[in-house]
């Protein structure tokens, strides 16, 4: 079973049994701990809050020295700039968001379609050198992207996949398949193989047994796995920046990164674009919070 955040909440603490003699010291300590936690939480969340704040500040206040924490003029102009071009029409950024949706979506579907059956096969059948195969699969995911992108770049140049959404989709699918297999294998392991055996005794073939009995039980797991794959593809930067160049193909991460580097940087716009970009990720991550540990360790840790 994966340890969930919710589970973590329900378990009580262990120190309810402190002997009375030490209560007072315990209380002082407790106050100290709460204070420490609060300070840490503020530090961890401040950059996020600052990003949101900057995105709704008027430009004058964005560059104010010293920085204005509270009394600033609120504006939604930056958000408008994210989606609408100054001379009307769609902005390059909004196109890149659309590209991100397409690339992340299609690559996730591809990784799921390829990965789920493979995970089921690894879980159910006696595959030769199964452990080695699984380790090999996961280790491809650990390759440094900058190293992989060099031959991929040459390869794509040969077949015309440079600056092409299909190129990104393929590399992201390859990048998510190892994760999907590892994550899904855990979910398949949790469904008793006996269900399929029973179905097969009833005359179903193994494939039918998988489709009719196991697959429906796997749906929540598939959804969670797909959400993580979606997040990984959505956030990816290295391949996106080296394999695409034109505005019509570029995904959001390199497009947002492209906002800086000129003579002046419109930080309000950067902040608004970042918020728009990060919001769906946070919402999705919240939806799959039960499986977060397995998700962020590529399916390797689950207990």
């Amino acid at each position: 079973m994966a340890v969930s955040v919710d589970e973590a909440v329900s378990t009580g603490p262990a120190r309810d049994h402190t002997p009375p003699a030490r209560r007072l010291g315990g209380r002082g300590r407790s106050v100290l701990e709460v204070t420490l936690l609060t300070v840490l939480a503020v530090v961890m969340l401040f950059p996020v809050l600052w990003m949101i704040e900057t995105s709704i500040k008027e430009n004058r206040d964005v560059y104010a020295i010293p920085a204005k924490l509270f009394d600033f003029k609120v504006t939604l102009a930056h958000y408008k700039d994210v989606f609408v071009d100054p001379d009307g029409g769609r902005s390059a950024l909004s196109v890149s968001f659309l590209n991100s949706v397409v690339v992340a979506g299609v690559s996730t579907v591809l990784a799921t379609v390829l990965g789920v059956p493979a995970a089921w096969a690894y879980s159910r059948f006696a595959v030769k050198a199964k452990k080695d195969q699984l380790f090999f699969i996961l280790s491809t995911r650990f390759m440094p992207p900058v190293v992989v992108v060099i031959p991929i770049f040459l390869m794509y140049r040969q077949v015309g996949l440079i600056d092409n959404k299909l190129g990104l989709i393929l590399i992201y699918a390859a990048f998510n398949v190892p994760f999907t297999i590892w994550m899904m294998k855990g979910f398949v392991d949790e469904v008793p193989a006996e269900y399929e055996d029973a179905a097969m005794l009833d005359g179903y073939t193994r494939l039918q047994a998988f489709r009719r009995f196991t697959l429906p039980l796997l749906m929540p797991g598939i959804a969670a796995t797909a959400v993580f794959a979606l997040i990984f593809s959505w956030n990816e930067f290295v391949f996106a920046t080296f394999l695409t160049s034109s505005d019509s193909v570029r995904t959001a991460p390199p497009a947002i990164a492209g906002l800086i580097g000129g003579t002046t940087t419109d930080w309000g716009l950067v902040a608004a674009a970042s918020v728009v970009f990060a919001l769906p990720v946070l919402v999705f991550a919240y939806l799959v919070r039960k499986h977060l540990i397995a998700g962020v360790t590529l399916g390797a840790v689950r207990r």
Partner: protein
Amino acid sequence: MSDPVPSTTDGSGQVASARPPARGRSPRLSDRGLAVAFISPAMLLLLAMSVFPLLWALYLSFTDYSATRGGPANFIGFGNYTAILTSAQVHTRALTTVIYVVGAVGLQTVLGFGIAYLISRRTRGRGVLTTLFLVPMMLSPVVVGLFWRFMLDAQFGVVNSMLGSLGLGQVEWLTRQRTALLSLIVVDTWQWTPFIMLIALAGLTAVPKYLYEAASIDRASEWFKFRTITLPLVWPLLLIAVMFRAIEAFRLFDLVYILTNGGPGVSTETLSFHIYKVAFLGFNTGTASAYGILMVLVVIVLTQLYLRYLNKLKEG
């Protein structure tokens, strides 16, 4: 795992209801066929997109090929490898990478475990706290890098602004050699402390309560309990998280690219970033490939250690 011996199995699979007994094909063979049919598409994609490119890079690493010059690739043996291994530039980058990995992962481990420990001792509000702490981890490195770049700006950055209002001096975070690497470590720590925290918290909540109760009956001190119960039980899981982070930190590229672009000078150039420069700015594709292969070797060793350990933990 399970390998049942069903009486009726058929590879084609169309009719659902009761069917006559096996049609001559052994169920085992059919299972094997199914396994191959289900595994090979995923494997093919990995071979095409991961293994083949690496083999190509391996080939290029023995040549003087340049992606822009074009022309035939001349075989030069181990020339690229000796050049890289003896290059003082590469040694500098290796040192930077090691400082960064040790600094960032060390800091994350201490902070992450500390926060997890504090959260695990709370009765109420644990879910909310955990969720809040996890936010940085889910953000794209692009967003994180850009945002910290803005906050650490020497002129109008909010960090210096706060230091100013506390009466402290201004720091040129990203434009001084020493502080730039420190900034990189701080930003990475900010983003990945939640990762260690999440896994440490899983370990901490899994420690059986009766152990603490038994220790309390014996009037053991908090420190004693921590040292003899908490730490030994959480350590294996924590090590998994640390190794995972170390591999990821070793490959770091995007944060450097966004936050400092390797500068000032070369003070924040990690190995990954240096490879990028050699390959895409210097166009020495052959050299960059050799460089990349060497890095892949290190990653493979680290990954093997990690996976072996993970496997041992799962079986034990």
